[in-house]
């Protein structure tokens, strides 16, 4: 068990390193941040001085080495545009992102579990078919577009809920729905098919043969078996949402990590983008590790000695 965790953590470190390297190089290919920081009439000497001050005049490899060295001490540099520590800037916004991700995930699970179970139990019924159409729409329509529609109809036309910003519970509803939209679809389909397999298994037939109520069989004995693939998905989507509900945060002007990183990308605020990638890579690795470990709680066969 300990060895397993250690090897997974090492794999995770490699993944984080890879992600940082790619982003580090890619954003420096995208253009010069100094051009956005100095006024139009600044002289060539001003530019050079600014680059030197930021360390951008050095070779790429040296820059990366310095960044890594500092990162190990927890220093991700100062934001170019906010003049504050880059990582701190993001960590301050993490609660907002966490709140949105959990709400989105809660919405997705609360909808997907009954939909998936009912579709499997009543296979071929009108309910199954409408759930299928719903799921197809969910997977075909991007979340940001749903977000725009929600703003247009629910917030602007009907004025039921606020269209943007963070504050009350009401502010949370529309972005959470838009964020959970895609996972609902994927989870419903996955749960339906795993549930169908389980419901045809010998042990479910045995449970029927000893007279357990159908409701107990479906919601207790079958669901726990069918939930294993769902847990993977929940973990992956949660990590996705935490690390980058970028588009939805921008659409709903949600003051979270995603929107801050998107702003930083446009401003070529390298330290913030790097810190953002670091943060989502770490979240991704940690959540995936937790998901893998959680299988053992659901399925005793996976428990390791």
């Amino acid at each position, binding site marked *: 068990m300990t060895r397993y965790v250690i090897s997974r953590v090492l794999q995770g470190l490699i993944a984080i390193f890879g992600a940082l390297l790619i982003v580090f190089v890619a954003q420096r290919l995208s253009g010069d941040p100094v051009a956005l920081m100095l006024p139009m009439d600044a002289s060539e000497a001003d530019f050079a001085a600014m680059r030197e001050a930021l360390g951008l005049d050095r070779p790429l490899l040296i820059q990366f080495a310095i960044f890594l060295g500092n990162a190990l001490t927890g220093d991700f540099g100062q934001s170019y545009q906010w003049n504050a520590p880059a990582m701190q800037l993001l960590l301050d916004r993490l609660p907002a992102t966490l709140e949105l991700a959990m709400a989105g995930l809660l919405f997705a699970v609360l909808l997907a579990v009954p939909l998936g179970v009912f579709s499997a139990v009543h296979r071929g019924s009108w309910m199954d078919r409408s759930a299928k159409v719903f799921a197809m729409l969910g997977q075909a329509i991007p979340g940001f577009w749903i977000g725009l529609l929600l703003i247009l109809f629910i917030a602007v036309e009907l004025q039921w809920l606020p269209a943007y910003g963070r504050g009350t519970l009401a502010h949370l509803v529309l972005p959470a729905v838009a964020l959970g939209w895609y996972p609902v679809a994927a989870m419903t389909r996955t749960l339906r098919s795993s549930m169908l397999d389980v419901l045809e*298994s*010998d*042990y*479910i*037939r*045995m*449970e*029927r*043969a*000893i*007279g*357990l*109520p*159908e409701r*107990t069989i479906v919601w207790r*004995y079958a669901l*726990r*078996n069918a939930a294993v693939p769902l847990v993977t998905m929940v973990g992956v989507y949660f990590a996705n949402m935490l690390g980058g509900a970028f588009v939805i945060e921008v659409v709903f002007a949600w003051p979270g990590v995603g929107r801050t990183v998107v702003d930083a990308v446009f401003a070529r605020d390298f330290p913030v983008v790097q810190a953002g990638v670091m943060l989502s890579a770490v979240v991704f690795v940690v959540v995936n590790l937790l998901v893998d470990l959680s299988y053992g709680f*659901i*399925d*005793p*066969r996976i428990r390791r000695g």
Partner: protein
Amino acid sequence: MLRVRDLKTHLYLKRGVVKAVDGVSFDLASGETLGLIGESGSGKTMTGLSLLGLPPKPAGRIVAGSIELDGRELVGLDEDVLAREVRGRQIAMISQDPMTSLNPVFTVGEQVAAPIRAHGMAFERSAMDLAVDELDRVRVPSAARRAGDYPHQFSGGMRQRVVAAMAIACRPRLLIADEPTSALDVTIQVQFMDLIEQIQTDTGAGILFITHDLGVAASLCHRIAVMYAGRIVETANVDKLYSSPLHPYTQGLLDSVPILGRRQKRLRSIAGNPPDPLSLPGGCAFHPRCPHASEICRKEAPPSVSVEGGNVACWLVADSGA
């Protein structure tokens, strides 16, 4: 105790209708073991499932006939009533494959306790305590400790004992054992058959023992019913059936089994193949493979006639006026 008359369970498939159980009748008394034997696809398992009101959904349906248990008609009962009052409580089943019959994510104790809870049988002691007693009864060693283990921590033979404990937990009047030993090693088989006899002595249940193994059936059953293509072709006491089988199919089955100590050049097999369940031959379903088939066998299904110690559905017997 159990009285089954003209039971018909059909499977409505896209390719056609399979008459899996096509007019089955038999009786079973308390404390009696009736063997239901026949080859794969003859309708043995489907008969067992029909007794529980659990033909495979959505294709299977009981279309006709009657199942009376202690005078109560079970065919046509509401699904809820069947689950609450019949399944597990009055009729229970030990299924075929112990490796897949237990839920992998619950402890065996929880699974044996489940029917006790569902049927409200736990009064002075908890369902879990009673479940441990049942595990003990089926001779799972150190039952109290092992009740907290999961199925994958048990061997095949032990798992089958757990399945048996689930089945008998509420003292059903009728126990259906569907090839419970087919998946086990021979030595484990013998132990398990002893266990079934023990259970019968303890609980006085009637047992419907479904098998294709003539040897197992002979050692365990009082009477035997032979099934072919959805029908019972012959019913007789064990001794009678093995010494003087009347139906040509039964004769063929017995001829195809090697007998210890008897010199045989080679075993005889029954000519031809089992019929296509989607289009059974007219008349007696066995006639294309029967060495004694005559004109009437092709045209009309033989009636089941009483003979000494049983019933036979064959024109040879019906015509001879036995």
